């Protein structure tokens, strides 16, 4: 789980071009959207594609995404339970 959290932080920084952040700057429970990392709706689309491409998880319900993308910890937990690759 720790490895997956680290991997997700690296992917998010790289794919969302969060040049100001390092892995150490993102705590497992930090909010990804809003006051935390400040991600927006375009980032959400990037994350949905990443989930499908890298972990074989297809999110179809936007409300579901809102909960899953709450923090790195929640996201890692969801991926662990639902991943097909």
């Amino acid at each position, binding site marked *: 789980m720790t490895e997956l959290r680290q991997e997700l932080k690296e992917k998010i920084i790289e*794919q*969302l*071009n*969060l*040049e*100001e952040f390092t892995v150490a700057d993102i705590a497992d429970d930090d909010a990804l959207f809003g006051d935390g990392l*400040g991600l927006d709706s*375009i980032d959400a*689309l*990037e994350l949905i*594609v*990443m989930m*499908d*491409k890298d972990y074989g998880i297809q999110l179809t319900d936007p409300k579901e995404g809102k909960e899953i993308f709450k923090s790195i910890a929640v996201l890692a937990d969801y991926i662990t339970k639902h991943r097909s690759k």
Partner: protein
Amino acid sequence: MKKVYINSAVTISAQDTFESDRFLKSVKKLSGKTIVARYPNYKDYIATANLRRMAEGVKMGVTAASKALKDAKITQPDAIITGTGMGCIDDTEKFLNAIISNDEQFLTPTAFIQSTHNTVGAQIALGLQCKAYNNTYSHAALSFEWALMDAQLRLQQEEAENVLVGGYEELGKEIINYRRMMEDADGFGIQVPYSEGASFFVVSSEKTEHSVELIDMEAHSTLSTTSIQDSLKQFLAKNNVDISQIDVFVSGRNGDVFDSYYDLTAELFENITQLQYKHLSGEFYTASAFGLWTAYSMLSRQEIPEAMIFKGEIKFDNHIILIYNQFKGRDHSFILLKR
């Protein structure tokens, strides 16, 4: 019909041109196949949160536009008009490569959204919250000229008072190398590096202290070597300007075989100071906007940079400048400025 004045000009180029006040006093000799622009500190002009999704062309365009508006003391232009030949080629390459590598699946939105040619115009408008006329022209080496002509017509017809107009180009990473390879195949190609940059201007119907008048401009998709001199003469005659009145002739020489067009036009200006600029800016579809920046700066500052001299000598007291550009024997443009 209202007159058209250029009230500010800003360029980001391969030279130190953005914030330096030394107007091409210490130039960098350009060499190699491609050369990137000298990027300013974008964070002074664009919020960090917005910067992260922007490719270099967008950053250069938004930054140059922002400074051009500031220099002209304009907060809300009546129109934003941009020109670009290749558009946001960096993001275009990214999403096209993603299509291939992901077997036409898993396309992410950012590169696609940012890849359109009008991204720069849109980002400028978003930054200003400007809902005015916004248009982008993409017509190879006449992209900037059509943008400028749109601005000219809007001002002349009193549809606008202040127009932000500019040209931008970014190198990208891949396609430019194929273009360079094609260029170098026969030894007769372009002899300056391919480059990039963004040049923005505020053009207005009101004259200010630093104004340079855009007397007129004309663009031709095609002109033959046998008709180029007559076309130029007709353009000058239409504007009641005699060849002897022109103080400086600026041409877009890039060292390829089509410089013959510049040689032919130069025959009309034997006793006039002749300048060139693409050895300083590099070649790209909107390099002529850099040419316009040099001409504006020369007239407003009454200085001719030695680095631009092709033939003749540095003169003072210059009033009329003619700029002529073409690319590969096509996309010819004449721009006539006065101060």
